[in-house]
């Protein structure tokens, strides 16, 4: 019984953290699945998404970010009022001590403003996160397909399945 419990726990652990998961650790944080979307040359903005967790029991607050890929960087969130989507700058994002915060499409994101060059799929975007207590943290975000909804590192392994269209990979994983 105990053996089965341990075996199940180990299995769950492995499922939860695949070997190739995109994780970036620092003394204070675990940043996982940092990703962005490819952009067109005319597009001057991009968004970066990720999951931020603290290493330990201290809360913190993400208060800003910088990137050499963009002229400026802001933290944005969405509100929906009567089906109208409003994207607005937010002052910061609280990181809980005992959990994590996920920045994802339709919610919070780090907005890259004034892209110096288009973001190309399968490249990395450098980003410096600024926290209220822990100071700065340098990370890199993987650039996914333009219409991707999550990091490919988060998707299940059988992600190469195609649905017949000639235009192929667009970041949707099954």
């Amino acid at each position, binding site marked *: 019984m105990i053996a089965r419990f341990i075996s199940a726990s180990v299995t769950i652990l492995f499922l939860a953290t695949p070997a190739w998961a995109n994780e970036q650790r620092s003394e204070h944080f675990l940043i996982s699945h940092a990703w962005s*979307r*490819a*952009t*067109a*040359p*005319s*597009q*001057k*903005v*991009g*968004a970066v998404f990720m999951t931020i967790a603290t290493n330990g029991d201290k809360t913190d607050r993400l208060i800003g970010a910088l990137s050499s890929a963009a002229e400026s960087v802001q933290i*944005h969130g*969405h509100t*929906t009022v*009567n*089906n*109208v*989507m*409003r*994207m*607005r*700058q937010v002052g910061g994002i609280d990181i809980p001590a005992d959990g994590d915060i996920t920045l994802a*499409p*339709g919610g919070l*994101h780090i*907005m*890259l*403003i004034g892209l110096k060059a288009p973001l190309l799929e399968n490249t990395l975007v450098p980003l410096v996160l600024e926290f209220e207590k822990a100071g700065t943290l340098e990370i890199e975000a993987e650039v996914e*397909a*333009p*219409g*991707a*909804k999550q990091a490919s590192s988060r998707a299940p392994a059988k992600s190469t399945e*195609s*649905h*017949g*269209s*000639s*235009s192929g990979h*667009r*970041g*949707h994983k099954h």
Partner: protein
Amino acid sequence: MQRKLFIFVFTIVVVVFFLGAWLNLRVVEPVESTPVGGMAVNVSIGGPFELTNHTGARVTDEFLRGSYALIYFGYTFCPDICPTGLGDIAVTLDELGDDGGHVIPVMITIDPERDTPEVLADYVPLFHERLVGLTGTEADIKDIAEKYRVFYRRFEDPNLTFYLMDHTSFIYLLDPKGRTVSMFRYGTSPEEMAGSIRKHMLSRANTYQTQFGSPP
């Protein structure tokens, strides 16, 4: 006397509240769920238009006749919501397989000032090789947005050097006759949209068979 006044004022407040709620619901929720998925459209949504496509050609709604269409209103200076919506449309077409060929994906900008045909030409192929980008004058866009009951508004923050757009984010399904037959809320999964489109296609094919005896 005071009591009567109170009742009078209270009644007015209640009536105004419910009238407001009703008007609000009427404008925002012109649709309701049906078994075919998405939302059935029980008021007139959509209508004729003349806009400029991403190749610079002037087109009317006639170019959509004979095919289904999935129409999204958005803007390119939109890093999150619009790519998600357009990505979902592309995946929906993939989900439909060969039937996806009978659906024209369309993005109509609500930001014609920045979204010129050139900007759209640069943007639309990122999502799907057949995605059609449409823009026009401010008046053109205002007209079609009213027809589709799309709300959009420029938001200017004095701290920013650019403006953002607040907008409704539905995906509209048009049938081959150009009638809006369904609306999908932001966040509807591509699987659900594809399922709904298939049901519309099937129901149309069945209707045709009943009327004319053989498939088109």
